[in-house]
């Protein structure tokens, strides 16, 4: 057990995986450069050599197909993109190829590839460097979609993703990379498809993923002081989603608020509301609710992103509103941090 950042936990997991299995390779733009993808790929090339760890041409689509081909002969690729937005170039290889290969060839091959995509928000990233497209991936049969929140889960789920025989989309939120936590040593595997109840409670179920789980926890802490007991579920895996844990929680609390870092319409949070409404209609004491990003591209100016993101205050206000409590005090208690567009003071840009 050691304390480390989320980025370090990813780095440790990559070292562990490559050490354990010589068929694991790691590539992507910047994987071998001095910045090492926000530090996540440090020392990999040094340790495992340029055959297994390499930079690549700016050819997102072909390089995804390369991972598929290598996978058909037993190579487990971890491919990294510094922004999810760049990966839009590779949708053909991902959706027509990787996701369907096992199925459409009668289950003779598997495609064990892991695609690390960095999502984020803030700091002038603007419309094409800040998308959170998890809903797209979770719509596609054959893909697994993972969104860990804590350093421990980042490590344990990256290891599980790499050794999963299916294509896994591994989404890292840029605002989590510097968060710190205890991480067990060695080959720890956190199973895909199991949510975590990070806080148990009885009044309402807050369900979230990745960075939104952090906002949910802040809100739950605040709400606790206001006498509201929230059950916070960190989904961790978006597909397959752990419906069992979720349904059980809603059965208990009778209230649901689903959070999402993606655009509202067609969000994963929407799918959650839909499934709960269809399957636990009678358990719901009142209308379920969702807080996600507005259906708007993210603007660049810091003036325009003020109040743009879903923050703990929004969550707390929504919960109190749902439960019929007075919300007048919330925004005074939970002000938007300043500056609002960075994860912490340590962050000085440009990324």
């Amino acid at each position, binding site marked *: 057990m050691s304390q480390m950042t989320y980025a370090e936990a990813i780095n440790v997991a990559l070292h562990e995986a490559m050490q354990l299995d010589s068929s694991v390779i790691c590539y992507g733009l910047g994987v071998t450069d001095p910045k090492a993808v926000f530090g996540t790929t440090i020392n990999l090339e040094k340790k495992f050599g340029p*055959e297994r760890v390499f930079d690549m*041409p700016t050819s997102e*689509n072909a*390089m995804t197909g390369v991972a598929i081909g290598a996978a058909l*002969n037993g190579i487990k690729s971890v491919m990294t993109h510094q922004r999810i937005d760049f990966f839009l170039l590779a949708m053909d*290889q991902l959706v027509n190829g990787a996701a369907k290969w096992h*199925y*459409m060839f009668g289950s*003779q091959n598997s495609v064990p590839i892991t695609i690390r995509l960095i999502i984020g928000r803030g700091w002038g990233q603007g419309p094409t460097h800040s998308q959170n497209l998890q809903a797209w991936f979770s719509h596609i049969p054959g893909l697994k979609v993972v969104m860990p929140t804590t350093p421990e889960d980042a490590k344990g789920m990256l290891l599980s993703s790499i*050794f999963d025989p299916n294509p896994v989309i591994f989404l890292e939120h840029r605002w989590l990379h510097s968060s710190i936590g205890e991480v067990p040593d060695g080959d720890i595997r956190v199973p895909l498809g199991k949510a975590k109840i990070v806080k148990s409670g009885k009044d309402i179920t807050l369900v979230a993923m990745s960075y939104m789980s952090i906002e949910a926890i802040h809100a739950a802490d605040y709400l606790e002081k206001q006498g509201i007991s929230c059950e916070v579920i960190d989904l961790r895996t978006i597909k397959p989603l752990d419906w069992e844990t979720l349904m059980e929680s809603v059965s208990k609390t009778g209230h649901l608020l689903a959070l999402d870092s993606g655009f509202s319409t067609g969000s994963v949070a929407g799918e959650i509301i839909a499934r709960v409404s269809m399957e636990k209609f009678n358990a719901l004491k009142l209308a379920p609710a969702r807080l996600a990003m507005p259906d708007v591209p993210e603007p660049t100016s810091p003036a325009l992103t003020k109040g743009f993101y879903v923050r703990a205050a929004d969550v707390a206000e929504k919960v109190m509103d749902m439960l019929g409590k007075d919300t007048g005090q919330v925004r005074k208690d939970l002000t938007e941090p300043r500056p609002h567009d960075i994860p912490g003071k340590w962050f000085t840009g440009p990324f």
Partner: protein
Amino acid sequence: MVHPVKNSSIENSLNLFHHMYRIRTVEEEISRRYSEGKMRCPVHLSTGQEAIPSTFALTITKDDFTVSTHRGHAHYLAKGGDLNAMIAEIYGKSTGCSKGKGGSMHLIDRNVNFMGTSAIVGNSIPVGVGLALSSKLKGTDQISCIFLGDGAIEEGVFYESVNFAVVRKLPVLFICENNLYSVYSNLSVRQPIGRSIAKMVEAMGIDMSFGNDNDILANQQLMKKAINNVRSGNGPHFLEFSTYRWREHCGHNFDNNIGYRSQDEFLEWQAKDPLMLLEKSLTKDGSDTTTKLSSIKEQIDSEVAAAFEFAETSPFPNQIEAYEGVYAAIEGVPK
């Protein structure tokens, strides 16, 4: 270098004939039966294009990897893929090479490292490059062969794949069958008139060769050299062959009447039919050869008939299987 003696040259021609006749017979039999409505998936036939896969069949080894396209029957057969399993796949049977999930456009035979075909133009190209990367990582001498059409040349992914193969000097053989058309579109509306595909690709930093007019013996030499070259570790190679498909792009008919190409053009190519020309030249070699030709035909005719019989009599997959196999199971963990 020792010149091949006459006999082995006849033998070689008989072998080529075998492969060409086999591919032709399979495609024509599909065509003959297609309107029965039992093969319920799109088929893209290679009648007229048999020369290239046949030279491939004689040079490639079982362990080498191959991927192909929507028009993949010939490549699957040339690589040694199981004929019964292919026909059964086109019939949607459980004995099909993809268990009925994939159809004519998704052929695979792992026993001979025929790794798959794709219904999306250009889609299998980087997959082939990835297979070459895997050989290099594993230190084997397997090369990876990628069949593609002239239309696939227009997809950016083709170019990206060539670039990466060159940068990492991967053992990839690109085999482009330039049949002048992408569906009903002539090359001239898709690529600059007079520009050579092979020369363009050469400028990307890759060795290339170009084979004309279905000239099978000349093309065979190009194929051999290219395969040897790639296997020797000289990096990727690009082969372009000029050829022609006889039947419609998708389906079983002739379609020279619909107006996108001329009957004259078709006839010109039919006069260069490599199968017919080879047969003609072989029958000149005396009655022994003629007898051998007949026995090859006979053997193949009955093999093909048996394959259709196999397909027709095979059971359909169970409805429930449609819902299985979306995810591969984690080892040790039941699905």
